[in-house]
Each structure stands twice: as C-alpha cells, then as structure tokens.
C-alpha cells in the first residue's frame, strides 16, 4: 500500500498538468480520444440515418454524455473492488433477469425490458459486463490453466444468465454474453483439446438445436442468410435492402444524407441494427474502412491494456471486454452485409440505443481502471 502511495506522488510530480489531470481521474487518454471520435462519427451517421431529424441524434448525444460519466465513474473503482463485489453484481444481475421474465415489457414477442418509473432499461445489457467480471474473478483465484472442475464451475457461472436471456428470448444477446464469459475462460488457458472438443460438440449439436432449440423466426433468419432472394418482400427484405444499400454505395458513396436506400426508407432499422449500411451507402467503402479502422484502434488499445495489466484479473477482464467488443462489431457488420444471420446486435456507439451505450462505456471505464492499476505498478 505504501508503495502505491509513493508511486502516486511521484507521478503527479513528474508529469505535466493535463496528463496529471487525466491520471488523477484514472483516464486513459488514447482510449478516451478514440471513443470520443467514434461517438462523434456515430452521431453524424445517426443524424443522417434518422432522416435529418435532430431529435434522435440529440437524444443519443445525451445518452452518450451519460455513458461517458458512467465510464469515468467505473474507472474510479479499484480492481479489488470489482473482485470483491463481483458476486453481488452477479446475483443482482441474475435477479434482474428473473424479474424481466415476470414483469418485463414486451416488444415483438420478446420480453427484454424493465420499467422503473420513467426509466426503461434492458437488464441483459448489464450482464454483458457482469458475466466476464464474475468469470475472471472466479478464475484468477484458482491456479491456471483451469482444471476440469474449475472449467465446469466457470461454465455454470456463464450458463445461468445465458439461459435466462434465452428464455426472453434474445438469442443475440445470449450468444454475446456467453462469448464474453467464454473469452475469459479461453484467455485463462483453457486447453486447445477442450476448445476443439467444444467445437466438435457444437457441430454435433447443430441438428438437435435446429430442430428443437430454435423458434420459427430464428430458423427463418438462418434460412434467409443462405437464400436471401427467396422471400424478398418477407423475411429477406432487410438483408436484400441492406445489401443493395451497401453495394450501391460503391467506393466513394452517394454523399452524406444522399443515400437513396436509407433516406427513402427502403432500408429498415436504418438507425439501429442496420446503421452501418447507411454509412456504407453514403460514404462508400472508404467510409466503412475508416470506421473499421477506428474500431480496430480501440481494440488494439484494449489489447495493449490487457497485456500490460499487472494482475491476472485485469488481463482476463480487459481481454474479455476487448474481444467481446470486437465480436459486436463483427457480428453486426457481418449480419448487415449478409454473411451472418440476422440477430439483434447493435453497432457499438453508432446504433441508436441508451442501455447498450452505457454498458459499453462502463466496460471501457473498467478498461481504464485496469490501465490505471498497471500504470501505478510500473512506477
């Protein structure tokens, strides 16, 4: 403890003022700048995607502002605190999910929302952070690589909330949450034999899952993936239109606010899940590549933080959060470009939506907390 206090003093004494301010607030400057840039780009795209109506973008800007505050707050907690509280986070999250099943608000046949007064939020979003924290906490207290019993324990931690979310049903979120937990397990050194076995098991399980595990609309989405032209006006409409939007954007794009697919409402969900098609149509391939570059820079920074983390907990958590972030991006763009089935995954920091942004930024806050921790020990 004394060591840490000393490092803190040395730090504030040896660096210039702005840096010291960011250090005092546990802010990772490169990450913050990248996130601010991404948010600004996202708002610009959203403004166009909502047909030039300021209301949506303004509302989203408020959400982003709140999210940044949450991020700074999350960065203030020490990693010890996250570990200490992980059990409570976990049970609290699971309780919320149970509450959703009983009191949740529905939309399109799925109950995903909890209404608290004027405030509506999606508890499954919170679990996106809670699950990796819980799994990382669980694993870093045991010797690694994990034994069979430990693996089963970690899987059990992942399985409970995932099962609850599948019940809502919200397959996309469930898969992402499972992935975030699995990333922690994988990074902790889950042996390749196990990974190979799991992959094999998954392939064997495809047939029973297809027959009994999926709902009709989910099956339809997967069929649509392989044959999008079969039912253009029905289930294939979204993908047909999003591909037309992206493809017609070409290399240069049609110009900001000039996308015919998005501005004339041919592209459905253009301000939420399919927003990347708006970017692709209006800014062309160059625009999407720049966005992708921005995402990759953020991911690179996340990986750097995970590499430099002092404690294993920080490594696992930073790695898991970063990889999950990439999975969001990959699944979203993959689905909009028609190489993955349509699952409800928003494009991080660009798609319209409140809870998702707040959760994401809280995750980056945790990354910053990890970065802060590692900086202290290096001095």
């Amino acid at each position, binding site marked *: 403890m004394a060591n840490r206090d000393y490092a803190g003093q040395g730090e504030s004494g040896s660096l210039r003022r702005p840096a010291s301010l960011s250090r005092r607030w546990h802010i990772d400057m490169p990450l913050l700048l990248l996130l601010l840039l991404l948010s600004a780009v996202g708002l610009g795209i959203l403004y166009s995607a909502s047909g030039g109506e300021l209301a949506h973008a303004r509302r989203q800007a408020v959400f982003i502002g709140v999210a940044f505050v949450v991020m700074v707050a999350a960065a203030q907690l020490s990693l010890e605190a996250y570990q200490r509280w992980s059990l409570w986070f976990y049970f609290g999250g699971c309780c919320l999910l149970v509450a959703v099943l009983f009191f949740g608000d529905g939309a399109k046949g799925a109950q995903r929302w909890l209404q608290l007064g004027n405030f509506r939020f999606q508890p499954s979003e919170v679990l996106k952070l809670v699950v990796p924290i819980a799994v990382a906490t669980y694993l870093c207290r045991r*010797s*690694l*690589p994990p034994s069979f019993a430990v693996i089963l324990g970690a899987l059990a931690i992942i399985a409970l909330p995932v099962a609850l979310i599948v019940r809502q049903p919200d397959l996309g979120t469930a898969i992402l949450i499972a992935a975030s937990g699995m*990333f922690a397990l*994988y*990074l*902790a*050194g889950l042996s390749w034999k196990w990974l190979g076995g799991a992959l094999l098991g998954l392939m064997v399980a495809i047939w029973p899952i297809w027959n009994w595990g999926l709902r009709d609309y989910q099956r339809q989405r997967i069929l649509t993936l392989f044959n999008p032209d079969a039912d253009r*006006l029905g289930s294939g409409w979204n993908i047909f*239109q999003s*591909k*037309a*939007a*992206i*493809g*017609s*954007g*070409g*290399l240069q794009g049609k110009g900001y606010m000039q996308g*015919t*697919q998005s501005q*004339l*409402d*041919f592209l459905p969900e253009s301000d939420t899940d399919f927003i990347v098609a708006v970017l*692709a*149509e209006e800014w*062309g*391939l160059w625009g*999407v*590549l720049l966005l*992708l570059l921005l995402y*990759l820079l953020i*991911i690179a920074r996340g*990986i750097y933080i*995970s*590499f430099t983390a002092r404690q*294993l907990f920080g*490594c*696992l958590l930073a*790695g898991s959060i970063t*990889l999950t972030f*990439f999975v969001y991006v*990959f699944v979203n*763009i*993959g689905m909009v*470009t*028609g*190489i993955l089935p349509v699952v409800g995954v928003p494009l991080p920091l660009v798609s319209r939506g409140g809870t998702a942004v707040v959760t994401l930024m809280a995750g980056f806050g945790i990354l910053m907390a990890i970065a802060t921790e590692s900086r202290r020990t290096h001095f």
Partner: protein
Amino acid sequence: MSDNLHFKDHFTERRLFRNRMLVALVGVIAMAGVLVARLYNLQVVNYDSYRTQSDENRIQVRPVPPTRGLIYDRYGALLADNRPSYTLSLVRERINDLNATLELLAELVRLEDSDVNKFNKRLPQRRPFEPVPLRFRLSEEEIARIGVNEFRLPGVSVEAGLVRYYPHKELLAHSVGYVGRINAREQKDFNEEDIRRYSGTQSIGKVGLERAYEKLLLGEVGFENVETNARGRVLRVLERQDPKPGAELVLHLDVDLQQAVLDALGDQRGAVVAIDVQTGGVLAFVSQPAFDPNLFVTGISFDNYRALRDSPDKPLFNRALQGQYPPGSTIKPMLALGGLAAGVIDANTTIRDPGYYRLPNDRHKYRDWKAHGNQVDVLQALIESCDVYFYDMAHRWGIDGMHDIASRFGLGTKTGIDLPVERPGLYPSREWKRGARGLPWFPGDNLNVVLGQGDVLATPLQLAVMTATIANRGKHYKPQIVKSINGSEQPAELLHQVEVKKEHWDLVFEGMEGVVNHPRGTGKKAGAELDFKVAGKSGTAQLVSIAQGAKYDSKALHERHRDNALFVAFAPVDNPQIAVAVLVENGEGGGRVAAPVAREVFAEWMSRPRENSVDTTETELRADVDG
C-alpha cells in the same frame, strides 16, 4: 517460498495469457479481413448490380394513362365524357396486415361488403405493386380523412383519375355503349403490346361504340420515371413522356332525334333505326327499354345487375342490332321490286283475292287479312298490303329469285355497321333449308317467306338499311354511326347498286307513298299533318301460329305473344333524306302503332336546317361508279 511459488505461477499464467491473446489477435485480424473482403465484394465487385437494384427500388416507371377520346353527336352534344374521380387504391405488396388496414379504412370511408368482395376478386389479377382500387368516387371529406391518417396506412393511396360519364344515361346505352373494368378474361387475351397500352388504364370498352372504337378511343399511354420512397409515395418526377389522348368521335346520331323517338315510343318495348339515306349514317338508334350505362363504368353492383338481367323486358338486349324478328309485310316493296325486275309481275298484273289463296292441288287455305277484290294490281297490293297478290307472285317466282333480291338488299347478312356483335338475320334458301332442316323446299314455303314470316328473320337495323336502299333507288350504303374521327370525315361506303329499271322504282315508290297517303293505305298515321310526303310500308308479324280456320284474337293471347308491329318508311318521297324502321314488340298493328313513331322521326328530322353535305356524297358516288 510462498512468494517465489506465486511469482512462478504468475509468470506461467502471464505467458499463457499472452499466447492466447496473440492467437485471438490473429483471429481478430482474420475476421476483420473477412469483413473487408465482404465489403469489397459488395461495394466494388458487385457495385453495378447493387446500384441497379437500389435504383430499381426508388425509381419506378409509372404509366400515365391517356385521356379517353370524347364522343359527340352530330351537333356537338357530348355523349361520353371523362370526369375527375378519386379512387382509393391499395398496393398489396406494401401492406403487412391487409385485414387491419381494411378495418381501419372502414372507419374512415364508407366501405360496403360488395366493395371489399370486388377488391378481393381484383387482388389476384393485379400486376406486382399495381395499386388495386377499393372504392371509387370518394367524397372530399373521405379524401381528407384518409389524408390525415396517411401515416397509419402504408400502401394506401388516393388516386385522382378520370372516369367515363354518360350524361344522357339510358338514351344512348345501346349505341354508344359503355366502358367497364378490364376483367380477367380480357386480360388473359392481352398480348405484350396490349399490356403496355393498358398499363395505366383500368377500363376498356365493353359494349357499343366504346368497344368497336376501343383502339382509337384509348389513346397512347405515356410514362414517367418517378422516385418513390419505400411506402410507395412519389417524391418527384425524374422524366416524363406525355400520353396521347384518344381519338374524338363525332357521330351521325342526333340526340334530339333519339329523344323524339323515345318520346314517341313511350313505354312500349321496341327498336327504331333511322338512317341518313345519302350516306348510310345512322341518325337514331334506339332499343327500348335501355339502362343507365354509368352503372357499369366502375363495376356494377350485383343487385343492380341482377335486376337488369332478370327483367322480363330485357333492357340489356340490343333489339335494334341483335333482335331478329320476322319482318312481316315490310319486305313486300323490296320483293315487288324484285318481281318486277325479274319479270314475274308487271304494272298490269292483277289477281283475284277472295280473302285466301290456295296452291294448286292443295286444300290448305293461305289466309289474307281481308278480301281485297277481283282486280288487285301491284300498286293496290302494296297500298293495302294484299297477301294473296304476293302469294301468287311467290308461287310463280320461286325461292331462288326471292332469296337473291333479299340478299341484294342486305337481308340474311350482317350490315357491317360499326357496332360489335351484330346478328345476321335470315332469309331462307333451298341450301339453307336442306342444311338446317334436312328438308327440300316445298311450294308452301314460298308463301311464308314472301310475307316475311316462317323462317325469315331480320334486325330492325337491317330493315332500316333495306328501306334506305329502296329510298336511294338501289344504292346500298353500309350503315355507320361514326361520322368523323378526330375531325376527319369518314367516307360513306357504297356496298353495291341494286339494278332495277326506273319505272319499277317509280311504281314501288308510288305504292309506298300510297301506303301513307292513299285513303285505303295501311300506314296513314306515318304522314299525318306533315308538309312533305312520306312513303312507307306496314308490317304485322305473327309470333304464334294461328290454327287453320281460327281467327286472330288479341285478347285471348298472352300479351307477349301478340303480334309485333312494324313500319318502314322514308321521306320526303321526291328527294329521300331519311329512312326509318320501327319495331314495337307485341304492338299488334304496324300501321296503328309503329307508323306514328316513324312520323315523329320525320317531323323532328325534317325540322332541322339542311346541311350542305350533298356535294361530298355526289363525288364519292361517282368515284365508286368509276371503280
């Protein structure tokens, strides 16, 4: 010790983590590569095809329907108009829940079950993304209500269009006809070109001139490229090719004459056709009772249709064009001409008429309507409608000659009038009887066909053409309703010239004049109180045969079995202008019931200021003779 162990573990764990993270990093780069490859494939490799797709999405080629040609009578009265009308249409492809949309619409506009039923019938016939009409003739208020609720009604639109309107209603139902919605059968018969021409048009001529001149009236469809949003709302017009309106028709018909005929007929069933002798132009074309053609334009309701279809008066039946009636004695002047020309009779031929006629070696009595005396010549036979004179002529002449002259005057063949679905009537011949009945021609048959009975059938139109040909001294013009198309006059078409000596024409003219003007004439009512002379011939045709020796008793017969009254006439005798055929169903007396109708036609027509159309007909005639 414990620290050391921990440190070692920490080191292994860290190495393990870094290995895993590096593998993951490779995975991230590979997956990002997949995305880039996919985007490259969509945006660069397949750019053209997606560009086309998105243009096809937003740019739609919309047909711009042409304005249907207007129809006027000879004096410029509008007979078929186009009126603006607002139609509620639905694009099925843009509606998710059709029932919900229909329920909502039912709250906003008056929507009857029949509207919905017909909409459901039209639905499977549509082309993709074609708006299918649900309600026609929306009121201002209904349009406003739909406008306010537009956001709740994707795929629903109010379309302004022109709808055919017939201001004279029943008056011209059987000549002008009507348009109606293109039905499945008509659509099936469309070829590629038709599909293009009708792409913006929903109605087609069904009956009458509207059908006969469909190709000209329709016009040429225009097109426009419009940008629409996903809900089908048109945002702007990118390119436009204007439609060409349909041809304007001016008819020979005269609305006032038509009305005069109707007034003269009163509520009697029948048909009247009046023809301009000089050109074959049809001046009046009446079939009574008629119907309001406006009922059919946007689709007649089943109740209305059933009422028309099941009425015993058959208002939908075009009696003038399709009604084949025994012409009775109205064909006697024509046959007399034939007999004179063939030398079977001459001006001095007389017979004795005891009130009946007997064929040699036959005890059967062929009745006359009265005994006409001992010295009946052709003139008296025509004036008094003496049957025995014609029995005698027919017996001596035989069927071949009678069939020949009847054919020359157009009986038994379609007149070729510019109206669809004409019936040919029938004037029997030996060949016909052998084919249709499998029987040889009997001498008694001659006596039937000479009186326009038995198997003889003619439409009122044919009788009018026959009369006009007599009035014209043999010039047989094709009857025409349309006088000019887009201002260009349609030439009169001389079909052929019946060659008969002038003295024979004079004799028959004299006879027909006597029918109207002689004290014993049978059609005096046709010329009553007119300042010009009318020539005509009455006819009374039996519908049921009367037993040998029995008398015709009007009261004992069912009203619909009573004789038909006929009258054919032309006027003025010295310079014939107009020929008329009148048929009154179950009217019983041609001279008593039909002749007065003819008189009204003449009175009305001859009160018109004369047109200077004689010159043109003269030149055309000469041209025809030369050819």
